[in-house]
């Protein structure tokens, strides 16, 4: 029951009780948190994951490189482009395929739209519902649908796009897409100000999230957390900057970083990331190169290992692929943000009120299906 990150249980205490939260969908997927509580305090928790494990990595060894895309993006359908891209980058590396510039720009736009959609989902469920804020739930879900409609227009699917096979995206921007997206971004930018007024600056939200679940910078590094959780603890690290893929090396954007490390900082960092995503999409649209969008990629990958990584909405996704001269990978290993941030759950949810647990859990944006794969 104890993990390395947990303090030893107080053995003398007669008043502790074990409570199981979940696995019936405590808010964002099936996970069970075994909590040991002492009155209103959580002494320790033990995350019990695996309820939505489907053996993605094993299945991937039975499918060829292209048919792996649809099922490998399923673990986190609200962030499908990033899962797709993280898998395709090492495949392209193994095959020696390069994507034409226009294809890279289109993929970047799709990925940043996906980041906004994923953060809006988080804002609606993990931040809004978990803190009892029904208004932001409705607003964020409503605005997310506008992005989903555009994504459907671009890719043909609302959530599970399978948009990036090796070689480049499947479709070019539809006629008139640019104008529609620009209009939506203008609208959404104004909405973010209202989000700020109604949610992020709301005294009730601030009171519930500020100073709760503090992850200090050195602990964040030690635990190896990633994504917004890491940047909310003051570590400026983003794969889009340190190892630019797609069109990110041409674009000018900043990495929002906060030093507080509490749940509120993790809230705000995602708000700022949405603003940066707007900025990135606008630049990508204005700099969009002409030309072809994709190159032909072989169906077979040679022997060798390749590692690719992208910055998804939940942190870095690193995929390692081992090829063996056939059309199927010998081994696919996915290391994603949710699984890496799992260690922060037992670390942060201890010696806190039971009522703070949903806020901390929500601020981590933990996605059980992605972690279980």
């Amino acid at each position, binding site marked *: 029951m104890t993990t390395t990150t947990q303090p030893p249980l107080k053995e003398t205490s007669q008043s502790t009780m074990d409570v199981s939260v979940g696995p019936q969908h405590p808010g964002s997927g099936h996970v069970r948190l075994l909590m040991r509580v002492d009155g209103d305090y959580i002494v320790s928790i033990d995350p019990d994951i695996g309820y939505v494990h489907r053996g993605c990595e094993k299945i991937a060894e039975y499918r060829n490189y292209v048919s792996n895309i649809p099922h490998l993006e399923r673990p986190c359908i609200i962030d499908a482009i990033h899962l797709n891209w993280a898998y395709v980058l090492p495949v392209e590396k193994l095959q020696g395929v390069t994507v034409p510039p226009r294809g890279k720009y289109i993929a970047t736009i799709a990925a940043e739209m996906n980041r906004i959609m994923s953060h809006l989902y988080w804002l609606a469920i993990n931040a809004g519902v978990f803190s009892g804020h029904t208004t932001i739930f409705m607003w964020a879900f409503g605005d997310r649908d506008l992005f989903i409609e555009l994504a459907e227009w671009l890719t043909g699917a609302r959530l599970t796009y399978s948009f990036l096979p090796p070689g480049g995206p499947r479709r070019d921007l539809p006629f008139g897409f640019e104008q529609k997206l620009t209009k939506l971004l203008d609208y959404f930018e104004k909405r973010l100000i209202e989000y700020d007024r109604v949610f992020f600056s709301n005294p009730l939200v601030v009171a519930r999230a500020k100073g709760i679940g503090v992850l200090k910078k050195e602990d964040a590094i030690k635990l190896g957390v990633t994504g917004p959780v890491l940047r909310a603890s003051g570590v400026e690290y983003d794969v889009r900057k340190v190892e630019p893929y797609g069109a990110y090396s041409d674009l000018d954007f900043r990495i929002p970083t906060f030093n507080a490390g509490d749940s509120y900082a993790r809230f705000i960092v995602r708000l700022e990331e949405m603003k940066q995503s707007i900025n990135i999409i606008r630049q990508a649209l204005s700099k969009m190169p002409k030309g072809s969008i994709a190159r032909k990629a072989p169906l077979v990958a040679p022997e060798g290992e390749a590692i690719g990584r992208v910055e998804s909405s939940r942190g870095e996704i690193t995929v*390692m692929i081992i090829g063996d001269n056939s059309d199927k990978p010998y081994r696919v290993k996915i290391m994603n943000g949710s699984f890496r941030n799992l260690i922060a759950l037992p670390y942060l949810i201890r010696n806190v009120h039971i009522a703070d647990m949903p806020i901390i859990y929500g601020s981590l944006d933990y996605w059980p299906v992605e972690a279980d794969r």
Partner: protein
Amino acid sequence: MTQTISAREETVINKTKSQFPQYIKETRIDSERRVTITFDEDHLQEIASWMRDDLGFDHLIGIAGVDYPTQKKIECLYLVASFSKPEFQDIILTLKAELARDNPSISSITSIWQSAHFHEREAFEMFGIKFEGHPDLRKLLTLDNWEGPPPMLKDIKFPEMGQR
């Protein structure tokens, strides 16, 4: 693949080689920003803590098992990277240990990189690698009633999924 290999990858390899000349079996620069070091599995603790403290590889991305039944070995790959050292920030260093397939075991690195806790539990369950010294080595992802062998081994086949 035409890539320019910068000096940083060489630096990582040379420093490691000069620190542990007898424990390093093989080094390889896979491509730009990717370095693989195969080491003697008995000395993981020393190498890992030196990597963290002196080279600045302060976090673990993940642990991947790879099964090679024909060569009778299971490879245990530790992917590590650095947040705090600017010149190594974009490098992914793969530490590779080759374990005997009939009884794979290696010492746990949860005391060095805390995040190894769940990664080691996963590799234990999926490949049967025993991590000695892990505080809580038990199943993580599979069902409680799964009693078969570690499912990611190559000889565990699922014919209903197709040919492999």
